[in-house]
C-alpha cells in the first residue's frame, strides 16, 4: 500500500472556485445546524432551566464519558417542515461512550413542542434503535416527552414503522441482550409511559418525572377521580409503591450520574477495537476536500483525491486499477481500521459493475467493511451498453451489495441517481450508516433527464390535444421546481433518508467512529467464496 500522489493544486483557480463554493455551503450548514441544535425557542429553554431541568444535549454531555465523543445523528431531521419549528425533530439521538461502553442515546427535547412525537421524531427514534440492534449497543432513553403529536396521529401511530414499533424494538432488544434503560426527566403519558415501563431499569427524577397511562385530566374524565400529577405518577409513588421505577433521585444530574453507574455494571464485552500501532493522519488535509469536489456537477474530478483525504497516510491499495476505471475500488485504513472503498469516476459500465461485484466479494471474504462514496449518475445506457449486458452486470453488483454480510457505510458526496443509488448502497440497501455531504443530490434521475422524460410523456399522450409551447414550458418549470426542492440535501436529511449531513472535513472522524463500532460487533463465523467475475 503506498501513499496516493495528489495532483490537486490548491493554488489553482479551479480549486479556489470549488473551495469558495463549498465554504458557502458549509456556512449554510453550520448556521442551520447551530439553530437546530439549540433546541426550542429561547423562552422555552429558559423555562426549562427554571424548572431545574437541563437541555437534552447538556444531559448527554453529562452522561457521556468526559473527553469522549458523542456521534449525534440527523441533527437536521424535520428541517424546513412544520414551519421549521421542530428542531432536530424534537429528539436527540446518537451514540456516546458511557462508562466505557458505547450506547445509543435517545433523548427527548422537551423544549421542542414538548418533546412530542412527529412523524420524523418516530422515524429518528426507530432509526436509532435500529442502529442499536445492528451494532449491538445498549439503549439509554432520556425521557421527557408528551407522547405522539395528536394532529399528526395518522402519520405517527398506526403503521408498521410508527410509534408502536419503538416498543416492539425495546422488547426485542432486551430479549437479545441489549440493555434498555430509561431515566425519566419529565412527563410520560400514555404511549410515552411505555418507554420506561418497557425498560430493564428505570430512574425517575423527583419533582419533574411523571409516568401515567392517563394524566390527571384524563383520569378526571374517565373515572371522575381528582388527583394531582405527583400523587398519580410521581417518582416517589412509582419508586416506593408501584415499583414502576427502580431509583428515585433528587436531581437530573444525579439521574445521569446514576445512569452512568448502571451502565458501568452492564457486564458487556469490551468494544474497544484492537489496532496495530499509531494511526497516521492523511497526508493531505481533509479541509481541502471542499476544493477537490467540483462545484459544477458536470465537471469530473478524481474520487481518489477524496479518498486520499479520508484515509490513514493517504495510502490506497487499488484493486484492478486498469479495468473498469469508472469505479475506483481500493482498500485502505481509516483511524487504523481496514475498509474497502468504492468510489465513482463517472457512470458505471458493465466492467465497472463486475469489478465492483468482485471487490465486494473480496472484502466479504476478508471481512473488510465496505465504504461507498457516492457520486453516481447511474449505470450506462445506450445500445452498446445494453448489448454488453449492462442490466445483468449491474444487477450482479446490486446483488453483491445486497447480500454482502460485511458492514457497509455510505457517504453521499454528490449525485445519487437511479440504479446507481442501489449499486452504491443507497438507503434501500440498509448500509449500517449513511451520511451525506451538503453537495448530495438523491433522485431517480437528474433534473435534466427527468424534465425530458416528463415532456416526452406529455407529447406522447394521445388522450390530450398536442401541448402548446406554454404548457410544455409550464411542465418543465414544474418538474425543475420539484427536483430542485427534492434533490436538496436538506430535503433528504429532513426526511431521514440519511443519518445526517456531515462536513467533508468531518467525514474521516465520523467514519472512524462508525467503523470502530462496526468492527467490534460480535460476528458469527461465515465464509463465502470469491466468484471471479
Amino acid at each position: 500500500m503506498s501513499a496516493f500522489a495528489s495532483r490537486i493544486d490548491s493554488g489553482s483557480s479551479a480549486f479556489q472556485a470549488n473551495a469558495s463554493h463549498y465554504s458557502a455551503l458549509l456556512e449554510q450548514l453550520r448556521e442551520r445546524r447551530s439553530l437546530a441544535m439549540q433546541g426550542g425557542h429561547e423562552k422555552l429553554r429558559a423555562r426549562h432551566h427554571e424548572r431545574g431541568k437541563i437541555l437534552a444535549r447538556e444531559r448527554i454531555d453529562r452522561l457521556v464519558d468526559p473527553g469522549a465523543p458523542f456521534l449525534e445523528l440527523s441533527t437536521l431531521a424535520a428541517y424546513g417542515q412544520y414551519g421549521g419549528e421542530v428542531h432536530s425533530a424534537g429528539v436527540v439521538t446518537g451514540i456516546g461512550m458511557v462508562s466505557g461502553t458505547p450506547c445509543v442515546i435517545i433523548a427527548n427535547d422537551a423544549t421542542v413542542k414538548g418533546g412530542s412525537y412527529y412523524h420524523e421524531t418516530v422515524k429518528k427514534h426507530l432509526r436509532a434503535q435500529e442502529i442499536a440492534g445492528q451494532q449491538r449497543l445498549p439503549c439509554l432513553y432520556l425521557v421527557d416527552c408528551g407522547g405522539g403529536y395528536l394532529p399528526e396521529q395518522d402519520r405517527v401511530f398506526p403503521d408498521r414503522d410508527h410509534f408502536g414499533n419503538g416498543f416492539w424494538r425495546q422488547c426485542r432488544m432486551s430479549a437479545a441482550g441489549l440493555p434498555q434503560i430509561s431515566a425519566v426527566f419529565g412527563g410520560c403519558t400514555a404511549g410515552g409511559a411505555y418507554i420506561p415501563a418497557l425498560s430493564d431499569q428505570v430512574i425517575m427524577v423527583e419533582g419533574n418525572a411523571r409516568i401515567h397511562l392517563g394524566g390527571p385530566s384524563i383520569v378526571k374524565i374517565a373515572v371522575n377521580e381528582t388527583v394531582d400529577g405527583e400523587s398519580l405518577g410521581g417518582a416517589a409513588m412509582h419508586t416506593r409503591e408501584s415499583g414502576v421505577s427502580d431509583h428515585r433521585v433528587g436531581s437530573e444530574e444525579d439521574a445521569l450520574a446514576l445512569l452512568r453507574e448502571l451502565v458501568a455494571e452492564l457486564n458487556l464485552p469490551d468494544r474497544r477495537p484492537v489496532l496495530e500501532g499509531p494511526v497516521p493522519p492523511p497526508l493531505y488535509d481533509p479541509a481541502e476536500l471542499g476544493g477537490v469536489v467540483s462545484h459544477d456537477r458536470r465537471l469530473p474530478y478524481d474520487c481518489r483525491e477524496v479518498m486520499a483525504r479520508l484515509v490513514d497516510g493517504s495510502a490506497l491499495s487499488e484493486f484492478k486499477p486498469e479495468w473498469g476505471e469508472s469505479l475506483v475500488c481500493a482498500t485502505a485504513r481509516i483511524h487504523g481500521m481496514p475498509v474497502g472503498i468504492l468510489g465513482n469516476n463517472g457512470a458505471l459500465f458493465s466492467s465497472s459493475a463486475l469489478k465492483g461485484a468482485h471487490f465486494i466479494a473480496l472484502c466479504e471474504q476478508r471481512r473488510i467493511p465496505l465504504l461507498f462514496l457516492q457520486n453516481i449518475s447511474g449505470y450506462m445506457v445506450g445500445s452498446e451498453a445494453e448489448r454488453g449486458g449492462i442490466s445483468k452486470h449491474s444487477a450482479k453488483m446490486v446483488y453483491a451489495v445486497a447480500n454482502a454480510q460485511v458492514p457497509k457505510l455510505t457517504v453521499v458526496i454528490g449525485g445519487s441517481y437511479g440504479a446507481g443509488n442501489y449499486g452504491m448502497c443507497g438507503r434501500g440497501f440498509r448500509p449500517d450508516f449513511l451520511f451525506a455531504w451538503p453537495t448530495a443530490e438523491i433522485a431517480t434521475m437528474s433534473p435534466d433527464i427527468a424534465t425530458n422524460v416528463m415532456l416526452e410523456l406529455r407529447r406522447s399522450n394521445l388522450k390530450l390535444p398536442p401541448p402548446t409551447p406554454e404548457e410544455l414550458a409550464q411542465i418543465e418549470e414544474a418538474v425543475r421546481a420539484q427536483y430542485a426542492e427534492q434533490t436538496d440535501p436538506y430535503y433528504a436529511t429532513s426526511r431521514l433518508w440519511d443519518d445526517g449531513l456531515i462536513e467533508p472535513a468531518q467525514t474521516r472522524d465520523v467514519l472512524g467512529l462508525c467503523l470502530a463500532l462496526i468492527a467490534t460487533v460480535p460476528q458469527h463465523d461465515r465464509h463465502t467464496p470469491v466468484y471471479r467475475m
Partner: protein
Amino acid sequence: MTAFDKVLIANRGEIAVRLIRACRDLDLLSVAVYSDADADALHVERADEAVRIGPAEARASYLDGQALIRAAQRTGAGAIHPGYGFLSENADFARACGQAGLVFVGPSAELIASMGAKSRAKQLASAAGVACVPGYHGEDQSDERFRTEAQGIGTPLLIKASAGGGGRGMRRVDDLAELPGALKLAREEARAAFGDASLLLERFIEAPRHIEVQILGDRHGQVRHLFERDCSVQRHYQKLIEEAPAPDLDPALRQRMLDAALRLAQAIGYDNAGTVEFVVDARRGEAYFLEMNTRLQVEHPVTEMITGIDLAAWQLRIAAGERIDFAQEDLRCTGWAMEARIAAEDPAAGYQPQTGRILACQEPVLTGVRVDSGVRAGSEISPYYDSMLAKLIAHAPDRAAARRRLGRALADFQVDGPKLNTRFLQEILRLPAFVEGRHLTSLLDETWPQGWQPAAPTARDRACAVLARHLAGCPSGPGPWASLGAWRIGQDSGQVGRSWWYLQQPDGAVLVAQVSGCQGRFAVWLDGVLALEASEARLEEGQLHYADGLGRHRLAVQRRDDVLCLSDHPAQPCWRISASPRAAEPDQSGAGGGGRLLAPTPGQVVEILVHEGDEVRAGQPLLVLEAMKMLQQLCASEDGVVTAVPVSVGSAVNSGDLLLALSERETP
C-alpha cells in the same frame, strides 16, 4: 578495648539507614531491628540481618532495652548503636548493654546520667567555666533576696514559677522598680496554677539563637570540637533547618563557644560524639550553656559536610577503642552546609502528622546534595513514630549557594503519598531574615503568628487540577472513540462538547467544572466562569504541561482515583474531582458525619471524654486520639446523644474505624 565486627542498630528510619551505611563503610556487619509496623521498612532491607523486636508501639519495641539486648546477643552483635531518640540517652540502657557484654556506642552511662540531669549538667558546666543563663533558683523566696539577685542578673528578666511551664506564672520585668509588684502577681498566679508559689529568676534572652558545638572525644582522653551549627529555625522547639557554620556570628564569640564546649567535654572526660547546646543572645553577644546531648544529633550531616569527618563512623571507631587520628588544628571548615528535615506533617494544620503509603518517591539527584532518607516508594508512614522521613543536606562554597541548592533539592524531592512539609521549608528558605542569616529562634512565630498558611489556591489552580483530571480521565486505548476527545457533530457550528466535572472544595461545596476541547486545546469553566484556556496540554509522568498567552507551564500533579493534588503548590491542595456529582457530595464517612465519629487517622485512643447516654453539643470534645506523638481532640459535629463507645482508652484504631456513635437528640 572490645573489638566487634557486628553492630545492632537500635533505631529505625533514616538514622538506621545512615548507621548501616557507616557500618558498611567500616566493613562491619549490621543488624537492624524492627517493630511490626516496620517489617517492610527500608532500614530492614539495607541491613545484613534484621530482627523483629515487638509490636508497633515504641515502648514495646524500640524502647524495650531488654528486647534489643536479646536481639544483639541472638545475632552475635558485639555493639549496639542507639542512634538518636529512643534509648540513645538512657543511662540504664547503656549500663545494661555493658552488663550484657555489649559495647554501647556512646559515652558511659555515668556521663549520660550526669548530662541528662539538667541541674547537674549546669553545675558541671559552671564548674568548667561555661556560662549558663544568669538566674536565681534558690530557696530563699524573700523579696529582698530576689531584688539582690535581680540586680546581679540585670534586665530584662523573667520571673517564672518554679513548678511551672508553658508560660503560666511567667512575667517579664524591664525595670527593677516593677519587681515587687511583679513578684506579688507572679506568686499569686503560680499558687493558683500550680499550688506552689515558689519562683525563680532568669535573664530574659531578647534575641535568642540556637547554636551548638559538635564534640568528638575518644577513650584515650582526646577531645576535639568540629565547629558549630546554627539550629535557630525551629517550630515548637523542634529544629527544621540547620546549618554549619553559624551565619552572622562574631568570630570572638564563636571562638569562646568552641573553647567553652571543648573545656566542658575535657572537664567531664567526654568520649564519643556529643553536642554542647547554647542559647546565644544576639543582642548582647553572649552565649549561655543550655544542655549537652550525649548522642549523635539529627543534624550531624552538616558538620560532616563542612569538616569531611564521618561522625557516625567515628562513633563506631571510638567505641571500638580507636584513637582520634586528627588534631584540632587539622580540622578546617570548608564551605557551607545546610540541612532541611522533611516530615510527613501538614504545617498549615498545626503540623498535624500525615500518614499513608508513599506510592512514588523521587529524590533529588544534584551535585553537592546529600539525601539521608528512611523511606522509598512503597513505605508506609505509620502513626507510631516521629514524622521525620528524610533530610536533605546541601553543601556549597558559601551560604547563599548552599541555600539555593537546598531550595532546589526540596523542589526536586517529589513524593506521591502523604502530605509533606517541603513547600513550607522552601518558603522558610526564602524569608528575608533567613536569607540574610540574621534570624532568631522566634523566626517562625514572628513571621506567622497565626501559623503558616500557604497561598490559597486560585481559580486557575483549580482549573489546572480539573484539566489534569480531565486528561487523566479521558478514554484511553486505541481507536477514535478514545483519540477524538469530546468530539461533537456540531463543534464547527458552535455546538461544542463539554465534559462535566464536579470538584469538591475543602468546605464540602461542589464547584461545577466544564472542559471543552480536544487534542491539546482546552477551555475550563468553573461554575460557568472561564478559568483557563490552554493549548498543547498533556499529562505526562505526573506533570501537567500546557501553554497559554504567557508561555509554557509545567506543574506537578498527583492523582489517586478521583483525588487530585497540586504537589508543587505551597498549599499542596487536594480536591476530589469526579465525573459524578454523587461522588463529589460531602464524604459521609468522615469524622463526625452522620452521627458517627470515625478515626481520621490511625492512632491510639488516649482519652474518652464522654460516656454512653451523655448528651453532647456540637463542638464538644468527645475523644482524644494520639497519632504520631500528636494529640488530636475530636469533637461532636452536631448535637446528639452518645449511643455507643466501641473503643476504650488504649485502643489502637485504624483510619475510618468507628470511635463513637451519636444519635440525634430527641426533640422535646
